[in-house]
């Protein structure tokens, strides 16, 4: 009897939950437009800058804004948050992919619900993506490579701390810097880190100890450059190697000002976020006059121009 009573209770509770379906309200079309942004975990300054760009533009245009970035940079968490947000109901999405390859099913779901999607930073090949705004990573990497060649006079070896192989930007940055430096006659060693700063520090330490000919280290993202800087510092090699990063984070700019790293390649994440919302606002208005692909050129920042960006 007791067992029967329990089963009835469970069934009643299930019934209660399912009865709420009658009162479901997705995100209503009557209210403000709701834009969602998802990117790397907020531990990555680059993603935070994009987020601020999206947020400020939403405020300016009178849209509501929600952050869907996971607490840890893991592809499956981004997918989970996206899936739930799509079910909840959104009017537009700005996505900075953690792993573009994992987003297929989520983008299918967004497409089915008619949610416009703008992708920033890393390219995603999916029919639902209306526009892409990102840095011209390949050209910017070549520029960084030329900078390195110029500053080292092509002497010595280059240690290239790469991001994740298979990540479109990681691959482009690797390609750009490697091809320019190798063409100038430098030997290039590549160590991929999956964007993990502790690996960057580890590999930099290992390689610097094993190879005294390293004259330059390029890191595919600024947090990695800072980790590399720590490695070089602890080995007492900070004045023997030049360190060049990529992103243009505030922390990197400060390190450049302090003379600890030589340069970084500036991206414009805030602008990417703002542009993403601009595209969405055009879509909401039914206009089609936006560019499907916007490639923002990079810019080298070193001591000579760092003050301009340190405001």
């Amino acid at each position, binding site marked *: 009897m007791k067992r029967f009573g*329990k089963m009835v209770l*469970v069934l009643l*509770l299930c019934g*209660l*939950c*399912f009865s*709420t*379906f*009658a*009162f*479901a*309200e*997705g*995100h209503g079309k009557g209210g403000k437009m709701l834009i969602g942004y998802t990117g790397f975990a907020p531990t990555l300054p680059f993603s935070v800058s994009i987020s601020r760009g999206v947020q400020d533009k939403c405020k300016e245009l009178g849209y509501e804004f*929600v*952050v*869907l*970035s*996971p*607490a*840890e940079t*893991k*592809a*499956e*968490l981004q*997918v*989970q*948050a996206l*899936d*739930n*947000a799509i*079910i*909840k*109901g959104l009017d537009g999405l700005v996505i900075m992919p953690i*792993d573009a*390859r*994992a987003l*297929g*099913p989520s983008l299918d779901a967004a497409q089915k619900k008619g949610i416009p999607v703008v992708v920033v930073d890393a390219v995603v090949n999916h029919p639902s993506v209306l526009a892409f705004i990102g840095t011209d990573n390949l050209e910017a990497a070549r520029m960084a490579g030329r900078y390195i060649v110029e500053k080292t006079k092509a002497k010595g070896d280059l240690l290239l701390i*790469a991001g*994740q*192989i*298979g990540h479109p930007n990681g691959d482009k940055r690797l390609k750009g810097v490697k091809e320019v430096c190798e063409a100038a006659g430098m030997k290039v060693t*590549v160590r*991929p880190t*999956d964007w993990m700063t502790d690996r960057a520090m580890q590999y930099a330490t290992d390689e610097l100890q094993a190879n005294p000919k390293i004259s330059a280290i390029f890191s595919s993202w600024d947090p990695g450059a800072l980790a590399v800087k720590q490695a070089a510092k602890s080995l007492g090699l900070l004045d023997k190697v030049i360190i060049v990063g990529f992103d243009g984070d505030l922390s990197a700019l400060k390190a450049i000002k302090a003379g600890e790293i030589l340069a970084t390649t500036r991206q414009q994440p805030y602008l990417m976020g703002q542009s993403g919302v601009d595209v969405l606002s055009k879509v909401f208005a039914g206009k089609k006059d936006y560019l499907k692909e916007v490639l923002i050129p990079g810019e080298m920042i070193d001591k000579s121009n760092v003050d301009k960006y340190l405001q």
Partner: protein
Amino acid sequence: MSAGMNERKAILGEPGVPQLMALFAILIVFSVFAPSFRQIATYSNIIVHSAILGVVACGTTIVLISGGLDLSVSSIMAISTVLVGTVLINELPIVLAILAGVLVGALCGLVNGTIIVTTGVPAFIVTMGMMGIAKGASLIIGAAKDMSIFPKSFTVIGTGLRWPGIILAICVLIIFFILWRTRLGFNAYAIGGNSTVARLSGVKVKRNQVIYYVIGGFLAGLAGVMYTAKFDLATPNTGDGWELQAIAAVVIGGTSLFGGKGGVFRTVVGVLIIKSLETGLIHIGLGSFWQRITIGIVIILAVMTDSLQRKSD
């Protein structure tokens, strides 16, 4: 066998009712405060995102009940996924890929179990070591490689609700069958409750313990296969942190961290509690940091409940 069943009921106590009520409470609270929660899509999405964790947690359940602990399941997922990826990009049969994934998991479990029972080194240490070894191996095999875009006939087992749901259901039912209807399962409770008494009663403790780790490893390997299919990529980053997630799900569900009590349906409830919380918080509009705080609180509450129940036994 029926005498054994009565003994078992005495050991287990009430089947996870407080946790089930907690799950309903969570669902009802979110339904009240988040209008968008009230759809069938919400619930099917919870299950979709619960499937892989559920499979791992089934293995963790039996290991924990037997008094063991396996921290290496995260790395087992990683090595499973890179092996699956390697087999698939070499265009070998899908069946081979799946076998590679689950068998490497079982192998890791076998090594774990054997070392633990023969050397007496605590499971925490041994499986922590295996965590490093398997992860390192997965990096050697899979780092710096782009293994993705696998055949549709493979990824279908990870897509949507159907196959992941079926695989999860089969795993739950098999573990349930083992725990409820086999000597192997009954021994798990005995060994977890008091392994000395179990041994003196004639239970082959060491041999059984190894088997539990093999089962746990096999299921972690299967989770790795499912992950590869769902996300259509194979990287060594897979599985980071999942060993703690699985343990959290098992403990929240009502299986004791110290062994001797629990069950796999409780684990299912535990996984659903975690995933319902994560989902509901998105519907309410709270970010991912709140998820971690909430789940941390829930874990502490769950262990407190377990401790109080033990005291009253």
